[in-house]
């Protein structure tokens, strides 16, 4: 169990993490999601005691990371797969880390086998592919058989085989009752791996929710209606509290009421419907809607937004998203 409370980190004028509070629970994969620059890595670095919080705290089972007697036995982390000395062999790299936490050579061989690097233990990581470096980084994270595993963007740059491997590995780790926090800026990846989502943007918490609830709350359902009586139906639906916009041709795009309500209203007034299609926004859309305006380097309107503006952007993206 990781507990983040009011965590804040400022680097000079830049606030990387801004009053973040959430828990990461055991037994599930928690996806830590946000655009690049949202503060995910800074948060993980503070959990690991690498960066000092400006204020707030991050604890593991109630203790600060630095107070853990043998940290690798309790927390395993992969922050940067490239963080290996190019000339120190994979096995020696792991052994040096293991020694510091009183972990023996046998466990080093074990984790090398676990990640499929047993054959290259004596080779220098300088010549490793990114996928092999990721595996080496994960081997390091698993050295102490830890109850808490943090992986920062573990699928970045991996081939499909490697991505699938990470997916099943993280699911397995969670099903063994471990606490797994997995960061990514890709919603599609999280949708396949995570059970629970913590979404951040500009260092602030945007959502802390189950995967399904996230989609339901973040994306409003749009009902596409085709009818010869578009004009009267639109008026009736608006009376019923819906927002109606014209779509392509004789389509109406209805938000704010369910598909059933649209059908009921039409039936009660004898209006013929040719089509009634409830559409749920995709995960990707839900995510973009939530983080819209909080991306550090958004392609449009590159000027930093205030929180109020961020909300305004989110609201406008809701409507433009629905008008698709």
């Amino acid at each position, binding site marked *: 169990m990781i507990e983040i409370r009011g965590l804040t980190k400022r680097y000079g004028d830049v606030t990387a993490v801004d009053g973040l509070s959430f828990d990461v629970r055991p037994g599930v994969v928690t996806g830590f999601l946000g655009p690049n620059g949202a503060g995910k890595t800074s948060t993980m*670095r503070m959990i*690991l*005691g*690498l*960066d*000092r919080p400006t204020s707030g705290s991050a604890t593991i089972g109630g203790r600060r*990371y*630095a107070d*853990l*007697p*043998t*940290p*690798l036995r309790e*927390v395993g*982390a992969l*922050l*940067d797969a*490239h*963080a*290996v*000395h*190019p*000339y*120190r*062999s994979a096995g*020696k*790299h792991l*052994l*040096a*880390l*293991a*020694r*510091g*936490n*009183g972990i023996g050579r046998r466990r080093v061989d074990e984790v090398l086998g676990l990640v499929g690097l047993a054959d290259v233990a004596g080779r220098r990581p300088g010549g490793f592919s990114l996928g092999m470096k990721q595996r080496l980084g994960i081997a*390091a994270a698993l050295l102490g058989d830890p109850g808490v595993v943090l992986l920062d963007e573990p699928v970045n740059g991996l081939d499909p085989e490697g991505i699938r491997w990470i997916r099943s590995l993280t699911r397995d780790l969670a099903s063994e009752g471990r606490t797994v926090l997995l960061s990514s800026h890709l919603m599609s990846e999280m949708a396949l791996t995570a059970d629970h989502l913590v979404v951040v943007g500009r260092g602030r918490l945007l959502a802390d929710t189950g995967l399904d609830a996230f989609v339901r709350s973040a994306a409003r359902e749009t009902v596409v209606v085709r009818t010869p009586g578009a004009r009267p139906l639109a008026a009736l639906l608006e009376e019923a509290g819906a927002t109606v916009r014209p779509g392509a041709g004789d389509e109406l795009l209805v938000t704010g009421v369910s598909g059933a309500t649209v059908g009921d209203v039409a039936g009660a007034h004898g209006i013929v419907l040719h089509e009634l299609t409830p559409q749920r926004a995709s995960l990707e859309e839900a995510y973009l809607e939530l983080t819209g305006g909080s991306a550090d380097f958004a392609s449009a309107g590159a000027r930093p937004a205030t929180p109020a503006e961020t909300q305004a952007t989110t609201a406008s993206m809701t409507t433009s998203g629905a008008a698709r």
Partner: protein
Amino acid sequence: MTAYDVLRSEWGKFHSIRATLGCLAGALAATAAYGYLFGLADARRYLAGSAADRAAFDPTDTGFRALVLAGVLVSAVGVLAVTSEYASGTMPVSVAAVPRRGLLLGGKAAVVAVVTLVAGPPMALVSFTLSQLSLAARNVPSAGLGDPGVLGAVAGAGLFTGLVGLYGVALGFLLRRSAGAVSLGTFLLILPGMASLFPDAMAEWIVVWWPSAAGARVFAVHPGSGGLAPLVGIGVLAATVLALLCVAAAVFRARDV
């Protein structure tokens, strides 16, 4: 996590990369080469000198000059043991494995200190032997290992190189960049060699009190009237290095990795 665990971990890191070992081998080669060359140079100076110069000539002075120059490479061993972690990005990994940063710094420092301390006497032995051979080959008075004080100076070389190695560790933690730390480390070590560029009063002070000059007094077999007593000199170097290490530890603990 015990200090012993951390020492084993740091020893594993130290001996598994080539740059540091290469520097150490280079330091030994440099003492051999410079030892021989200082012998040649001093022989020429002796043969060209006046009777008074000849009377004042002390062959044991020639014997250990190479150690001060080779110190540049010894300090680089200390620097690289630290900066290789920053350069390859493994420092966060190391700190995550050993979050007690004072212990981590202490482990690195201890490994470097032991290695450079052990390397010192063989370097001194090589330098002394080759320099005296090159003096003797030109029929210039030379000293032997058995002469009073010589073995003491050979043993003292370990103190000198060990402290210089630790000095490199401190600079590595303070500057975090190999090039910067090695350049600054070299400049500060050989500053006494440039003392003549400074005003007289300052030059005198530098030659006597500058830590690298003071530490080199440990090689003085016949400490004359000039300069500090060998143990006082090495004490000045030790105090300076200890102070630098304390500053490095404070900075390392306070800074984000």
